[in-house]
Structures are given as structure tokens and as C-alpha cells.
């Protein structure tokens, strides 16, 4: 098999390989060490393939892959810059999270279904980012929902999260997401009944024609509103955010890193894809709504985070407030603000995954999740203290970390787009972020040693499988802060592709019209 054959089929490989290995892992349950090696190899291979995909998209423009010879009537996978970039981000984080979970997870949980479900989750995420068909988007949403539910109830070593907490959190997560997926089906059905197609590019072209001729039906607007509910629930935007601070802390740390790093970004991706492609003509009505919800999310998340004593709960509330900043940029809706919110999204994904993994190691070190019982760990865990400080500085937006560049670009673009009041509110609550992140670091690592629990999990310490992912991610955080130009330029060209979806529509529809 030569390289050209692989690059032709990259989009389908990103989805098919994890599904195939998810099935294979079920048969390998009697050989856990083989499972580990194969799963790590597959995950690393997917990372390489996603880099190839992004390079391919950068060089040759939008890649469209037809599944079967059905043209726009079948399912197409479309990799534009946004999709390819998100796939690269999720592949990188999932590889590192998998490496981390090798030593973090309990052997029994790891040996049963963990590898299989993890592959299925990766398939769901990649499929969501790559698909060009709106019903297929729903199917991949369900795949990632179910597999992430199975992963949330998996156990980490030490049992710091009780199983009743896991069950309760998963129940909330599942019920809310089931309702949101029903809402999504209603929205898809009404869209299909209106335009008679499920292909997103085809839909966008038809709705464009309708709005140009002036007979855009009124029920496009409620359908678009339903999609805000769906993606808002996935991304934990204000009225739908209350499942997140239960679910993310209850999950084992590498899965928390996946949930906070990648899964809530699926909501942001959905808004960027659906609203700027299909509902382009209705966007003027929804931009104020998105900005308002984003601001309330920022305020609520940062105020709640200040009062938390549980380290993972603090990080979860911080995720809520940070996703608000991403949606603020999306809501302003100009090329520069969308580019800024993409930069913000990438920086937050990297920093928050790193923080969740570091918090997992801190919990093992201290033997508790309660920050009031921690303290003085700077001597016993100097590596973790440095890494956590880098992550905290990035989320707080202190130079020279990536978070500073992200916040600076977002506020700068917001001010040049004349959104003074929202930027002012966001700026005020960015100060809260500095306060709770630095205070958390100070409570864990400074002060007198309070942790007296030296049990078996304390002594097992940091293995290289747990420290390497944290180290790699923190290096990425610093690199994004010191040498941000490549990320900024890619985000800029991605944003101009999002704002002007004609290239996407042409790439799907103009190739072979049958």
C-alpha cells in the first residue's frame, strides 16, 4: 500500500479504524497487556493520520470523501480546516489520555471494556467532526454519548470517587443528553421536511436560494433555536450547564480530560458548523442570544468556581466559564472573533486536559479530592507543582502561557468589532479566573503539610506513563504562548472558511453532480 492510497482515504480511516479496533478489543479481553499495546499503537497511528489529514487539507483545500458512489444523496465525509484541526486536537489529547490511563485506571476496569469504549469514543468524536450529513451527525453524537457514559462509570485506582456518585452523575448526564438528542431529531426532521435533503452543504445551498428569493419559511427559525438547545447542552452553556460539574469530577481523570478537553468542544464545533453553514441567513437573530448566554455562562462558571473545595469540581466549573469565552467569540461572528475563539478553544483544550491529568496525580499523591485537606505538597511533589502552575497560569491568562495569547486575541478582536460591554463583563470575570486558579495552586502546594494519609496509593507515585502526557501537554501550552504565530494563522484561515461557506458548499456539490 503506498502513501497516495492512504491519503485518499484518510477521512474514512479516521472513523473506521477505531470502530474496527473497538470490536477487536472485545475479543482480546483475556489478554490485557496485548490490549494495552495494540490500543496505544492504534491511538498513535490515528494521531499520525490526523496530522497527515491536516497537511493534506492545508495543501489541497477541502477534502470530500463519498461513502459509496451516492454523491450528495449518500453520506459524505468532509474535511475542511475546522474539521481537520479539531480531529488533530482530539487525536492528540486522546492519545495522551490513553497513555495516562494505563497506570491511572484500576486493572479490573481497564481489562473489561475500557479499551473498547475508548476506541468507540474516538470514533464518535472523529465522525462528528468529519461528517457532512446532518443525520449522520446525530448518529455519531449518540455513539460518543453512550461510550462516554460507559467510560464515566469506569474506576480509577484508589476509588476516590464512590460508585453511587458515578451512577447518579451518569444518570443525570444520560437523561439530559437523551432529551437533547430527541430535540435534535425533531430539528432534523423539520429541516428535512422543509428542504428535502440531509446533506449539510446541499441544505445550505437550498436555504440560501430560499432566502435570496425571499420565501424562507418561518419554521427555519425555531429549528435553528432547537439546535442552540442541542449544542448548548453538549457544550454546557448557561441554562443547560448543571450536569457538567457533577459528571466531569465523577469520571476518572483521563476521561475528565477527554470530556473537558474535547467533548464539550463538540458543542462549539456544532454551532460553528450548523449556524455558519446552514442557518447563515438567520444568524443575525441568534448572535445576541449566543452572546447573552455566553456572558451568563462566564459569570456563573467563574463565581461558582471560587467557592469550590473539591479540586476536580473547581476545574469543572472553570471549564463552564471558559467555554463561555469560546461562545462569546462565536457569537460576535466576525472573522477575527471566530479566529480568536478557535485559538481560545485549542488553548483551553490543551491546558484543561493537562490540569485534569495533573489533578488525578495530585489526588493519588494526597489521597483525597478535598483541597482543604491538601497543603505543602511543593516539597513532596515538585514536578506536579510546576505542571499545575503552568496549567493554572494558562487558564488564568498570564503570559507567557497560551491562555494569555487566547484571551488577548479574543478581547482585542471583540473591541475592534465594537462589542464594548460584553468584553468589559468578560474582562471583569477573567480576574475571577486568575483568583480561583492561583488560589487553588496555593492551597494545594503551599502552606503546611496537612495530608497525613500515606496509604498504598500514595507510595505508587508518578510513573512515566502518567508524567509524560502531563509534560507533553505543558510544553504545548508554553509553545502556544511563546510561538503562537502558526496557530493564529491557521485559526485565521479556518475562520475565513467558516464565515464564507461557499467553498465548502462548492467542494461538496460541484464535484460530480449526478
Amino acid at each position, binding site marked *: 500500500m503506498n502513501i497516495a492510497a492512504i491519503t485518499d482515504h484518510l477521512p474514512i480511516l479516521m472513523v473506521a479504524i477505531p470502530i474496527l479496533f473497538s470490536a477487536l478489543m472485545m475479543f482480546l479481553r483475556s489478554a490485557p497487556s496485548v490490549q494495552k499495546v495494540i490500543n496505544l499503537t492504534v491511538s498513535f497511528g490515528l494521531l499520525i493520520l490526523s496530522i497527515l489529514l491536516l497537511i493534506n487539507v492545508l495543501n489541497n483545500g477541502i477534502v470530500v470523501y463519498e461513502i459509496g458512489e451516492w454523491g450528495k444523496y449518500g453520506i459524505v465525509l468532509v474535511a475542511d480546516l475546522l474539521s481537520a484541526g479539531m480531529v488533530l486536537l482530539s487525536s492528540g489529547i486522546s492519545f495522551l489520555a490513553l497513555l495516562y490511563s494505563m497506570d491511572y485506571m484500576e486493572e479490573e476496569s481497564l481489562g473489561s471494556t475500557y479499551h473498547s469504549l475508548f476506541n468507540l469514543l474516538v470514533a464518535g468524536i472523529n465522525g462528528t467532526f468529519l461528517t457532512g450529513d446532518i*443525520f449522520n451527525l446525530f448518529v455519531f453524537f449518540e455513539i460518543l454519548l453512550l461510550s462516554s457514559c460507559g467510560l464515566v462509570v469506569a474506576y480509577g485506582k484508589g476509588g476516590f470517587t464512590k460508585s453511587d*456518585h458515578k451512577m447518579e452523575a451518569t444518570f443525570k448526564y444520560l437523561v439530559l443528553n*437523551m432529551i437533547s438528542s430527541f430535540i435534535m*431529531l425533531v430539528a432534523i426532521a423539520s429541516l*428535512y421536511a422543509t428542504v*428535502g435533503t440531509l446533506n449539510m452543504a446541499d441544505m445550505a445551498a*437550498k436555504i440560501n*436560494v430560499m432566502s435570496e428569493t425571499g420565501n424562507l419559511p418561518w419554521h427555519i427559525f425555531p429549528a435553528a433555536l432547537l439546535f442552540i438547545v442541542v449544542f448548548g447542552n453538549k457544550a454546557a452553556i448557561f441554562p443547560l450547564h448543571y450536569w457538567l460539574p457533577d459528571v466531569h469530577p465523577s469520571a476518572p481523570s483521563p476521561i475528565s480530560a477527554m470530556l473537558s478537553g474535547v467533548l464539550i468542544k463538540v458543542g462549539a464545533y456544532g454551532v460553528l458548523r450548523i449556524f455558519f453553514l446552514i442557518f447563515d441567513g438567520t444568524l443575525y437573530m441568534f448572535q445576541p442570544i449566543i452572546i447573552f448566554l455566553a456572558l451568563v455562562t462566564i459569570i456563573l462558571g467563574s463565581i461558582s468556581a471560587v467557592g469550590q473545595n473539591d479540586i476536580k469540581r473547581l476545574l469543572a466549573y472553570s471549564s463552564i466559564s471558559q467555554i463561555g469565552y469560546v461562545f462569546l467569540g462565536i457569537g460576535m461572528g466576525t472573522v477575527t472573533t471566530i479566529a480568536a475563539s478557535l485559538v481560545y478553544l485549542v488553548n483551553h483544550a490543551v491546558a484543561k486536559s493537562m490540569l485534569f491529568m495533573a489533578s488525578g496525580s495530585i489526588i493519588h499523591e494526597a489521597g483525597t479530592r478535598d483541597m482543604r485537606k491538601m497543603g505543602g505538597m511543593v516539597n513532596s511533589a515538585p514536578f506536579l507543582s510546576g505542571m499545575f502552575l503552568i496549567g493554572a497560569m494558562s487558564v488564568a491568562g498570564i503570559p507567557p502561557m497560551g491562555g494569555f495569547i487566547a484571551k488577548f486575541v479574543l478581547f482585542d478582536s471583540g473591541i475592534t468589532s465594537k462589542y464594548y460591554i460584553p468584553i468589559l463583563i468578560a474582562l471583569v470575570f477573567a480576574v475571577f479566573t486568575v483568583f480561583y486558579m492561583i488560589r487553588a495552586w496555593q492551597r494545594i502546594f503551599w502552606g503546611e503539610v496537612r495530608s497525613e494519609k500515606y496509604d498504598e496509593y500514595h507510595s505508587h507515585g508518578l510513573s512515566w506513563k502518567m508524567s509524560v502526557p502531563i509534560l507533553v501537554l505543558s510544553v504545548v501550552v508554553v509553545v502556544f504562548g511563546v510561538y503562537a504565530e502558526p496557530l493564529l494563522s491557521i485559526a485565521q484561515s479556518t475562520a475565513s472558511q467558516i464565515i464564507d461557506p461557499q467553498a465548502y458548499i462548492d467542494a461538496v*456539490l460541484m464535484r460530480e453532480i449526478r
Partner: protein
Amino acid sequence: MNNVFLSLTIAILFGLGTFLILRKDVIKVIIGLSIISHAVNVLIVSSGVFNGDNAPIINGHVSDSSSNIIFNDVLDNGVLAPVVANTEEVAYVDPLVQALVLTAIVIGFSITAFILILAYRIYEEYGTTDINELKRLWG
């Protein structure tokens, strides 16, 4: 007339499902969720029943130019295939929505199976199926 009854059925199913989701029992919530999922399924099928002015599916053997069906996209003129003129009678029901509904049923089925097992585990941990007792997390 049939359309009215269809819409009424869907509306009643949605109402029943919402009522059951708001009950205090885990099992009733799950039953409500599956009723809503079936309401959504019926809604999807109903979106493929036309009364004659919209046909999303190409009917291969009527490709002669005398009919008003256009099969090719002409994006410059704003024509997106397949397009059927208002005068054209469309008698058949859209088969695509039935394929969609099969997928939706299977997905709903698997999620219901998972959530039932979850409800059993919650009963094991908490000793009750009362939703109000599920507040150890203070979300």
C-alpha cells in the same frame, strides 16, 4: 383529516412523555423518555408524507424532459435537483425517512437498555428509585 389525527397523536405522545419525565420515580422517567423517543420517531415518519408539492427522491425511470422533474443542479440559476413543479402530482411516500427512523429506533433501544441497567445499579446503591433521594452530588 388523517394528518390532523397524526399530528394529534404525536402531540399527545409528547405530552405523555413530558408528564412522565417530570415524575419522581426513576422508572417512570425512563418510560417517559422512551415514549418521547417514539413520538419523535412518528414525527420523522410523518415528515415524509406529502400532499403533493415536494419530492426529495429521484424516480429513475421518469427522466424524460417532458416531465417537470429536474435532475441536475444548476447553481447559477438557483436550481437544486431534484425539483418538482407545483403542478406535478407526487403520490409516493418518501422512503428515506423510514430508513432514518430505523436508525433512530435502534439507537433509542440501546440507550434505553443502558439507562435501565443504570437505574438498577442506582436502586442497588441508594435502595430506592425516588429521584429526590439522588442528591448526594449537589449539582
